[in-house]
């Protein structure tokens, strides 16, 4: 039987859609083999890289990965650390020894560092097979997020909101003079002048909705200029 690609590169596909026929094609992420066919297992954008076919999801919950920088919210203060909600199906633990670059003495009042409901910009340091997740505050740029406001976006769109080497978020910061921290877990912290914050939020929402389209950078720029 001949081999045949049933889709075009960068097309949006849905679960169950046959992407290619033939054993020459290799099922990558988000796809599976059914007899001789490669079939979509996710809704997303299909990419064909040589013979490997994979799907980049368009939506979906954040799943923690080591080294990801995420925004966590303190939901419990424990004996020896904090429990954080990191906007995913599993909570994370920030232990006392990873809680700060300074030494935290045993028995210290942990709420003095991070109290219930407060947000922190932290880094995932370990994830087990059961998705038990550890985070740390030891690392450059990690900090408690005071003041400001938090918005939540589709976590799958975070790479587009950050942009190539941070170009998109840099553009928004420059145009709005806001401080912005983007967590891989779909949480974004913004702090600036009220009107400017609103412009930053509008720009982020625009990218979130149009990330799969072309020419987003230019239209975001135009949008922010219009709103100024």
């Amino acid at each position: 039987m001949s081999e045949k690609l049933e889709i075009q590169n960068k097309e949006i596909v849905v679960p169950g859609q046959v992407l290619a026929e033939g054993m020459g094609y290799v099922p990558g992420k988000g796809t599976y083999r059914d007899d001789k066919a490669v079939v979509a297992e996710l809704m997303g954008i299909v990419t064909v890289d040589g013979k490997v076919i994979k799907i980049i999801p368009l939506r979906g919950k954040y799943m923690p990965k080591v080294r990801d920088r995420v925004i966590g919210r303190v939901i419990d203060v424990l004996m020896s650390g904090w429990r954080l909600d990191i906007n995913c199906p599993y909570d994370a633990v920030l232990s006392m020894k990873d809680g700060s670059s300074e030494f935290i003495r045993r028995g210290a009042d942990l709420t003095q560092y991070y109290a219930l409901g407060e947000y922190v910009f932290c880094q995932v340091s370990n994830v087990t097979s059961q998705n038990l997740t550890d985070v740390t505050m030891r690392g450059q740029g990690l900090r408690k997020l005071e003041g400001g406001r938090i918005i939540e976006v589709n976590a799958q769109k975070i790479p587009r909101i950050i942009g190539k080497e941070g170009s998109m978020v840099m553009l928004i910061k420059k145009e709005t003079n806001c401080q912005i921290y983007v967590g891989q877990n779909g949480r974004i912290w913004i702090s600036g002048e009220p009107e400017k914050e609103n412009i930053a939020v509008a720009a982020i929402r625009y990218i979130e909705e149009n990330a799969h389209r072309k020419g987003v950078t230019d239209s975001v720029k135009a949008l922010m200029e219009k709103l100024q």
Partner: protein
Amino acid sequence: MSYDKRYDGRKPEELRPMSAKVGVIPNADGSAMFQVGNTVCYAAVYGPRELHPKFLQDPKKGILRVNYNMMPFSGHGDRVRPGRSRRSQEIALVIQNALLPVLDLSDYPKAVVDVFIELPQTDAGTRCAGIVAASMALAHAGLKMKELVSAVAVGKVGDSVVADLTYDEEAFEGEGGSTDMPMAILANSGTVSLLQMDGEINKEHLATSLDLAKKAAQQISDLQKKTLKEYYQ
């Protein structure tokens, strides 16, 4: 009195007019609306998220939990009392079983994916509409699925095998009565993940009904795919 002409003038294999939309509930992780004739259904997916109480958790994979509910004003007769009934719980269970074979929740041990189905107006076929909408909502939520699930009720009214029965057809009291058979179909494999029946049927009619359901499911499946893709146009 035989039933050779359908009340609403449809051909035996013809489905009622359908429409669908995804993303109708922005708060949800995935959502969809599906309308077939006068039956309207919303489905929302929340999760995967933490499952409480803990004893319900499965350490190997996430679990699927379906909730089916008719809005109080959606019934054909009196107001439907809010809250769970034996009927709504059984329907939720069969919908859950219809969707489970395609879902892969192995990445989410101990978590739950919740599906909420709500119907604002009904004219038969609600469990099938629920499956069609829920299936789109699960795909929209970005969950791993082998394929979409489509569903339709087929059956025998009088002596005719027909697809997508209305409430009036289910209530047909002429000779031969009415037999209603809701089915969920996995289009790729051609297998059946929901099958129930109310009424009587012989083997020939059963075979014809199965064939009819598969053809009907194909149309619904095409609409599901188109609807999902349209969301990103």
